[in-house]
């Protein structure tokens, strides 16, 4: 049991590419921390630096009060679950789990106790004699976790362990991992690119982009108060609607708030914060939309509309909406027709304001 602290950690590859640009955060003892971000943002690299599989160019990584920069992976008292499980193909499930303990010269009876216990928790007891190639994806995943938990390490590290599973299995395993971690109370760092997985698993969520931390915090806080437009559009699906504000709109809508008036450049509204109505809410925003497409998913309906006087364009970044397109979510299945003109209204409290470059949140 231990905490993990990163202090101004940086990594630059030979050739000059700076993969990690100065990261600070702390994971408390027993907490589940998730690193989330798009491909190439550096989250796996950061995880591997904590593991000791990648070198650190500068900064400190601290596990349980000990600075481990120069410590080899075997001596950091960590366990890792890899994306492709990395099981030893030529060993039985039992030996896969026992391997790490044997390397540490643990007596066989004690090894047996631990392996049997882990197998029981993960429901692998019937498969201890089988080889990995005889197991399904989900079973292999559990063996990989078994291998990690028998070690009783200070920290668990997970590198996108569920990416190779089909959707249903992913959801089931997600819950299992969380329950297991709560039970064992081991500090965990988990990497994923799936924002839904991140939201549901994390005690602490770290949103990363291009080697930097965009925001750290409780998942719900991040959802409700994203610090940058990147976080705003990355977390939450469908993504938040982000609209550049023309200066006259800013003046008229936010006349009372001088800070907002001077600095705000982008307005964000989540699809579920809209209501379709002909009445304007005082202090809120009303958008005139022409309905372009409708998606009914049973419990709710997503309406894709274009703002009047706006031209449809192409989204600047993946995950963001094309300029001019607005998504509105309404509960139920009753929806306007395609081509209809509707008014989407959002209250003042649900508005998110960002600076023109998207890097700063404006209203509290």
């Amino acid at each position, binding site marked *: 049991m231990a905490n993990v602290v990163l202090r101004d950690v940086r990594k630059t590859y030979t050739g000059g590419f700076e993969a990690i640009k100065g990261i600070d955060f702390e994971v408390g003892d027993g907490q589940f921390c998730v690193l989330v971000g798009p491909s190439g943002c550096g989250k796996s690299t950061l995880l591997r630096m904590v593991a000791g599989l990648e070198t650190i160019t500068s900064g400190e990584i601290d596990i349980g009060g000990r600075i481990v920069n120069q410590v*080899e992976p075997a001596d950091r008292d960590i366990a890792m679950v890899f994306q492709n499980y990395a099981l030893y193909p030529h060993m039985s499930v039992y030996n896969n789990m026992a391997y790490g303990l044997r390397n540490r010269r643990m007596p066989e009876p004690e090894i047996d106790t631990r392996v049997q216990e882990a197998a029981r928790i993960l429901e692998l007891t019937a498969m201890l004699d089988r080889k990995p190639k005889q197991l399904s994806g989900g079973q292999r995943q559990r063996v990989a976790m078994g291998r990690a938990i028998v070690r009783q390490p200070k920290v668990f590290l997970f590198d996108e362990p569920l990416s190779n599973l089909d959707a249903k299995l992913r959801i089931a395993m997600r819950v299992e991992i969380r329950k297991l971690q709560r039970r064992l109370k081991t500090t965990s760092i988990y990497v994923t690119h799936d924002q839904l997985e991140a939201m549901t698993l994390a005690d602490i969520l770290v949103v990363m982009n291009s080697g930097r931390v965009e925001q750290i915090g409780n998942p719900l806080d991040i959802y409700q108060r994203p610090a940058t437009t990147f976080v705003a559009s990355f977390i939450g699906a469908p993504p938040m609607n982000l609209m550049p504000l023309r200066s006259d709109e800013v003046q008229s809508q936010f006349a009372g708030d001088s800070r907002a008036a001077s600095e705000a450049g982008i307005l964000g509204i989540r699809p579920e914060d809209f209501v379709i109505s002909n009445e304007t809410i005082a202090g809120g925003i009303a958008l005139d939309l022409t309905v372009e497409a409708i998606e009914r998913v049973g419990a709710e309906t997503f309406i894709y509309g274009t703002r009047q006087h706006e031209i449809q364009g192409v989204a600047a970044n993946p995950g963001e909406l094309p300029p001019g397109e607005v998504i509105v979510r309404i509960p139920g299945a009753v929806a306007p027709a395609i081509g209809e003109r509707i008014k989407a209204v959002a209250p003042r409290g649900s508005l998110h304001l960002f600076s023109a470059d998207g890097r700063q949140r404006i209203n509290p």
Partner: protein
Amino acid sequence: MVEHRPWNDIIAYAILTLGVFIVAFPVYVAMIASTHDAATVVGGRMPLLPGGHTLENYYRAVFVGGSRTAPEPVGHLLLNSFISAIGIAVGKICISILSAYAVVYFRFPFRKTAFWIIFVTLMLPVEVRIYPTYKVVADLRMLDTYAGLILPLIASATGTLLFRQFFMTVPDELLEASRIDGAGPFRFFKDTLLPLSVTTISALFVIQFIYGWNQYLWPLLITTQDSMQTIVTGIKKMLTTTDELAEWQLAMATAVLAMLPPVAVVVFMQRLFVRGLVETEK
């Protein structure tokens, strides 16, 4: 290596350099020997640096001829080796690509039998059947001919297997699309399959060229005339002398020449070579 210990890399470099040294040493010595005159080479204290007789030795070897036991100029031997190696490579490629095409893309009685007949040849290299094959070649009056050097060596199935494996990876849809476009077997082969096979053909060519060039037993057996020797068999003949001392420096020059083409092929077409080697042995 997961651990980050600097002296680990140094050890690796040291071992690899040692390996390269072991590998290069004989060749280096041969090259040095080919640049000295006879007396220095035979004296037993040959220096390890090049001497001044390079041009003279190579000229004599290539154009004039070695000694009484191997009077044929090496230039001619090089030509023989070249013809035979190219002949083997091209011959094998041609007959095996056609057979592989037949076996993979057609359905006809005895198809599987034909395949097995060809496949069995993998099991027995020419060394096991030398004398009967010799008799056949002699009966066909192919002794001391290029045909005799080439034909018996293209009989094995390596090429057919390689092409068959490759054709299996070509998507069925290509053939279907091509048929819809009105192409028959010839057009499909010429316009679609052949262009796709270029890399495989090149890889096989590299391997077979080296195989053909380096043949020793078979050419030794079926050629008696000096003018039909290959450079590989020619070297040995240079060294078998009864009364006079072999001219080692010329033999070494010949050895260097004998190594040059295959080694050049391996070095410059390394990726194809590796691919050919790994694929044919599966």
